[in-house]
């Protein structure tokens, strides 16, 4: 008894410390709060949630059984299915789930102040995000590591299976468009950044050839060579940018970069993987892990003060970075880091095939997501230690603050965030750029924050430009890897989907259908990218909410799947574990989706925006950014496409909820266990069970 009390005592202390830190950041009164308090609050929350809530889910809801055979044990082949050390697997899983999402969303959300973002990231991850990842991992692990699409088909039925597959493809398109847009926004008019990112292509090709022919499979060696070359490219980039002949050659407008990326995406995704995709994936993965670790270290050592207030006046929804009120749009803007539907694809991908023991799903599923949430917290910190005046100068569209340092400083100061033209110009000079005005998309802001933290540790102000371009390179590198891997994956998905109607399309080895599917996939994301790049409000305003809605929608779908499985396992008294977060996400995505379609404010509602343009067109007026009536019609067409897409997402959510409730009721009425799990051990694999397993395939 005394031992039990003592073992809880330490957790009580952690809880008190966390509550104290949260109170401190919530009730700041004019003085700057140290960023470390956010870190303390976050880590305490994660520890308590992991120790108690994830244990509750593991023991009570899922009843994880350490004795039960996992797919890795059952199908061990040394390749796809390998029982793997849990820490090694944790690293693999984390590297697969952490991407640009948790870095960008919180930066954009900082326009409302740091507090709403911190609260949502912490509450969201504990009750929704980590639960979703853990649940999907569990469901897939009990079903031979099947993918999300197959799981939905098996547990909810074939129609919701196709709906989910289609929804996933649309999400992929929006994600690729928004990721590419971030790269375009970061590299436009920046010869230094463009040169270093362009240099990654020949570096990766060199690495690919080296690994293929000179030293096959020498991953560590070639990654070190590649890293050194990358650092040289950053250093040399400054010389290029300052050169009167090469500088202009690497200076591109957003529209030019947009076409370059579309062409690049098409070519990169049909090249052999070993030549470009795989080696760059190595570089981006290791650079990502390294940069995240360095950022954590930097925040702890430098312990910077937060400059952004806890709440800004923009909680009312009039902010320049993105439009819409706190509910529902904050919960859409921060997707990854709080809850990300995309993780359902990873948790039902390679990870469940590698788990050596069921009990470890808790560390990998729940713990892995907590770790990603911490990345989001660090991104929010990086955005909040910048002067708010600089933050709003960088993140407001040119249509609102103009294009000169004077106009931007005047407007941002008028909003209540004092900044001078000299400060704006000095910041641009420090980071080695011509201008920092309206560098929307989140990546440049994060890069400035990271450069401040890193230069505090190493190199001082002289190194700030290097660190800025290092941070830009680190983001652009893994975004571009995601773009070509995603285009490839999207192409396979499309071939799968079209194969349902035209079986010929299924043949992934056929050149004709591969090129056609690749072109369709690149065309789809390229369309949204072009639309975003030419948008006067910066594109992020339109595309990021669409991305958030689609990602949260997929999370809701995954949680509905989890609920159905809980019902089928006859554990329905614990179903609130997935029903609560699912209900919250459904409310958020439906509200946001419907507002994006029908809201009367043209800054929020697509149809209202289309109406404004069509009324103007009817009166013969031309509104910016359109320069002639044809472009006016294009804007109206884009708005209607976006509205239709939002409607589509709403329909996907509603239909999956319908099928989910139906499946839950059916399982509830059944007098026995109806979950379609693989049997617990090989010995039980009699003919009937073998039939059930193959029926799931």
């Amino acid at each position: 008894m005394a031992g039990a009390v003592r073992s809880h005592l330490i957790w009580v202390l952690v809880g008190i410390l966390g509550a104290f830190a949260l109170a401190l950041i919530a009730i700041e009164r004019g003085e700057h709060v140290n960023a470390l308090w956010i870190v303390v609050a976050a880590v305490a929350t994660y520890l308590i949630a992991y120790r108690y809530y994830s244990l509750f889910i593991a023991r009570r809801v899922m009843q994880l059984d350490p004795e039960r055979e996992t797919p890795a044990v059952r199908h061990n082949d040394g390749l796809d299915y390998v029982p793997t050390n849990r820490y090694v697997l944790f690293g693999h899983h984390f590297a697969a789930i952490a991407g640009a999402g948790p870095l960008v969303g919180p930066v954009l959300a900082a326009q409302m102040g740091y507090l709403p973002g911190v609260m949502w990231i912490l509450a969201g991850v504990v009750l929704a995000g980590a639960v979703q990842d853990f649940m999907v991992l569990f469901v897939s692990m009990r079903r031979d590591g099947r993918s999300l699409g197959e799981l939905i088909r098996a547990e909810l039925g074939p129609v919701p299976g196709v709906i989910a597959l289609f929804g996933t493809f649309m999400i992929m398109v929006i994600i690729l468009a928004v990721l590419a847009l971030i790269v375009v926004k970061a590299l436009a008019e920046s010869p230094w950044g463009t040169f270093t990112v362009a240099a990654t292509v020949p570096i990766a090709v060199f690495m690919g050839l080296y690994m293929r022919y000179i030293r096959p499979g020498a991953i560590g060696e070639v990654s070190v060579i590649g890293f050194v070359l990358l650092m040289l490219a950053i250093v040399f980039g400054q010389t290029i940018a300052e050169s009167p002949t090469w500088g202009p050659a690497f200076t591109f407008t957003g529209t030019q970069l947009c076409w370059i990326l579309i062409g690049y995406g098409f070519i990169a995704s049909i090249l052999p993987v070993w030549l470009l995709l795989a080696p760059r994936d190595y570089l981006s993965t290791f650079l990502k892990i390294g940069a995240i670790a360095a950022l954590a270290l930097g925040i702890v050592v430098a312990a910077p003060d937060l400059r952004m207030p806890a709440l800004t006046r923009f909680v009312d929804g009039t902010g320049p970075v993105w439009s819409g009120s706190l509910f529902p749009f904050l919960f859409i803007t921060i997707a990854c880091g709080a809850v990300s539907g995309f993780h359902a694809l990873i948790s039902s991908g390679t990870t469940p095939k590698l788990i050596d023991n069921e009990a470890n799903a808790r560390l990998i599923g729940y713990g892995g997501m907590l770790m990603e949430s911490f990345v989001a917290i660090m991104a929010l910190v990086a955005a909040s230690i910048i002067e708010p005046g600089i933050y709003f100068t960088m993140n407001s569209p040119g249509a609102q603050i103009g294009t000169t340092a004077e106009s931007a400083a005047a407007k941002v100061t008028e909003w209540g965030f004092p900044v001078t033209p000299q400060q704006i110009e000095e910041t641009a000079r420090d980071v080695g750029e011509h201008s920092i005005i309206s560098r929307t998309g989140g990546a440049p802001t994060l890069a400035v924050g990271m450069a401040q933290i890193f230069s505090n540790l190493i190199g001082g102000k002289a190194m700030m430009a290097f660190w800025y371009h290092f941070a830009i390179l680190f983001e652009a590198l893994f975004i571009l890897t995601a773009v070509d891997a995603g285009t490839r994956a999207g192409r396979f998905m499309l071939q799968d989907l079209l194969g349902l109607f035209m079986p010929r399309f299924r043949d992934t080895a056929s050149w004709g259908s591969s090129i056609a599917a690749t072109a369709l996939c690149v065309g789809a994301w390229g369309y949204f990218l072009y639309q975003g790049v030419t948008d006067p409000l910066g594109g992020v305003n339109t595309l990021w909410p669409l991305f958030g809605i689609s990602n949260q929608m997929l999370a809701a779908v995954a949680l509905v799947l989890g609920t159905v499985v809980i019902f089928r396992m006859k554990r329905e008294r614990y179903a609130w574990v997935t029903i609560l977060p699912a209900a919250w996400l459904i409310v958020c995505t439906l509200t946001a989706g419907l507002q994006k379609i029908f809201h009367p404010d043209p800054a929020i509602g697509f149809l209202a925006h289309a109406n404004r343009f069509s009324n103007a067109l009817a009166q013969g007026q031309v509104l910016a950014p359109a320069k002639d009536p044809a472009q006016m019609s294009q804007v109206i067409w884009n708005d209607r496409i976006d509205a239709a897409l939002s409607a589509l997402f709403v329909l996907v959510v509603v239909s999956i909820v319908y099928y989910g409730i139906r499946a839950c009721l059916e399982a509830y009425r059944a007098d026995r266990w109806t979950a379609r799990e693989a049997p617990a051990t090989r010995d039980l694999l009699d003919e009937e069970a073998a039939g059930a397993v193959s029926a799931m395939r």
Partner: protein
Amino acid sequence: MLKPDLRKRWSDFTKCVCQGARLMVGVPDYETYVEHMRRNHPDRSVMAYPDFFRERQAARYGGEGRSGFRCC
């Protein structure tokens, strides 16, 4: 001079880090694979490391749908 068990722990740790880094980019442990083949399928031929590496690379980005795709 490290004590032998400390040295053993350190070498286990570095091995774990290396395995983790390789698995992050989709290449599982080769020794484990060889050991598995030797023990369970002595009749089948074992891939040499370069072939093993190429096979894994192709599998990571191959036709399985989302394989190799990272999150947003």
